[in-house]
């Protein structure tokens, strides 16, 4: 009991220490808010679900377009605005992890207008990537418009929404990025499943919502 109490006390002290550090960081960032690094993390998951084997063809992933209305922020923490720059590299790297589902993946220069001769070319634009908080939970929303092309041209346009949720542990700004990673990693199994049909030239639903529960089996 004493041990537990000591642990809680030291954790609380550590937490207040963190809060003080956060306040200092926010002062040094002056008036603009807190910069966050949009770092993709393939291991970030609220469910711990492992990728399933889906790959049947080669994927050519074009660098994602950042098409958000608000390209300045991904939400706010207690310290103020969470400032994120171009999120294209984050989304592109995330989509690259379709290789974890068994697909052979290559990246394509956006300037190459023609779709590849083999497999499926994927063009994406991110229209939303934001976080919000309710009580002690952080939630994220990622909205993506995707275009799948085969050698004959556009095979299908599709709209995805994905969300992630996470308990706010420390009020740290990185936790908001992690919650967005949860959302992106919830999206990947749905894209991987769709590609099983698209690789065969078959159409899929025009819209999917990707939550933590994964695609229906």
């Amino acid at each position, binding site marked *: 009991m004493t041990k537990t109490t000591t642990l809680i006390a030291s954790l609380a002290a550590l937490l207040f220490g963190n809060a003080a550090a956060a306040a200092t960081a926010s002062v040094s960032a002056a008036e603009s808010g807190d910069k966050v690094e949009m770092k993709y993390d393939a291991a970030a998951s609220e469910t711990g679900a492992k990728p399933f084997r889906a790959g049947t063809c080669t994927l050519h992933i074009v660098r994602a377009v950042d098409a958000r209305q608000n390209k300045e922020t991904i939400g706010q923490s207690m310290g103020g*605005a969470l400032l994120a720059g171009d999120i294209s590299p984050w989304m592109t790297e995330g989509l690259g992890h379709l290789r974890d589902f068994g697909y052979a993946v290559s990246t394509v220069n956006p300037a190459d207008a023609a779709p590849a001769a083999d497999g499926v070319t994927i063009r994406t634009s991110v229209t939303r990537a934001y976080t919000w908080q309710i009580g002690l939970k952080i939630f994220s929303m990622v909205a993506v418009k995707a275009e799948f092309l085969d050698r004959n041209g556009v095979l299908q346009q599709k709209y995805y929404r994905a969300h992630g949720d996470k308990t706010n542990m420390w009020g740290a700004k990185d936790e908001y990025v992690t919650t967005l990673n949860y959302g992106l990693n919830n999206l990947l199994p749905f894209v991987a499943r769709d590609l099983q049909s698209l690789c065969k030239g078959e159409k899929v639903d025009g819209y999917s919502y990707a939550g933590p529960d994964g695609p229906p089996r």
Partner: protein
Amino acid sequence: MYHLRTVATLSVALLLGACAAPMRSSLTPEQRGKITELTAHVVVVQDEVIAAVQPSNVSAALGGGLIGAIIDSKVTNSRVNESQQALGPFYAAIEEVDYRKEFKESIERGLSGYPIKVGKFNTTPRALSNDKLLHLREDLQPGQALLVISPRYTLSMDFRSFDSESVVTIWLKPDASASNMPSQRGVLRYQSLPIGPGGKESLALWAAKNAVVFRDMMRESIAETVRMVMLDIDVASTTAAQPKDLKSFAFNVGNSMSEIKGQVLKAGVGRAILLGTDQKLYSLPDLASVATTAKK
């Protein structure tokens, strides 16, 4: 370890929850008389409408203890999951809606007729930090005051109502008011007419025909908020409402209908602005006024 960290976070969250700003404070007549120009700073953090997932009442039922808060966190989580699942097609229909742009245009138009000149408008997605606030206050010239409007907008838990809540504050130059508290603070709430019977059927009505109903209600919420901002400063000087002046209005709290009582400040056809007994300003549907007008 995980649980201990959660407990520590919860402790701090509960402590912070205890510190609340007063619902309403007003400029003194002297301060009001000195203001000749306002600088408006509108902070819209949200990128789109969020379904209001109301925290469960579990912790209140358990006396607000830590265990209750942990249960709350799980319940909130599953409610958000359900909401997001149902909201997908609706979100697709409102993809192009730009609340910030609409707010900016509406407030510039609305405040152009305001007795106090509004010299500068700024609309930003960046939450206001203490440093930024101080910086904005220090930039003020003699006679100027800073008007900060922070709106949040949601769909109610049953998806029937579009709600918005804006915290509006007025700040003076630091040397004119050394306080870290605003010289005026008000909370402005808007609620739309209820749309449909609730759930997916309501979402389908919001989204139909390129989300025309949603766009109309969102614009109305912004226009009403601007009206309330303008009323807010003047209401500060009125005396407190007498109980006999109070009128009741139906209010959707998400899973049931409740009631807001207040003093009507402005009555129109189908809608009224009132100062609630909780000191918030409300713009609410006034179905009785429609019925009365129809009878005439």
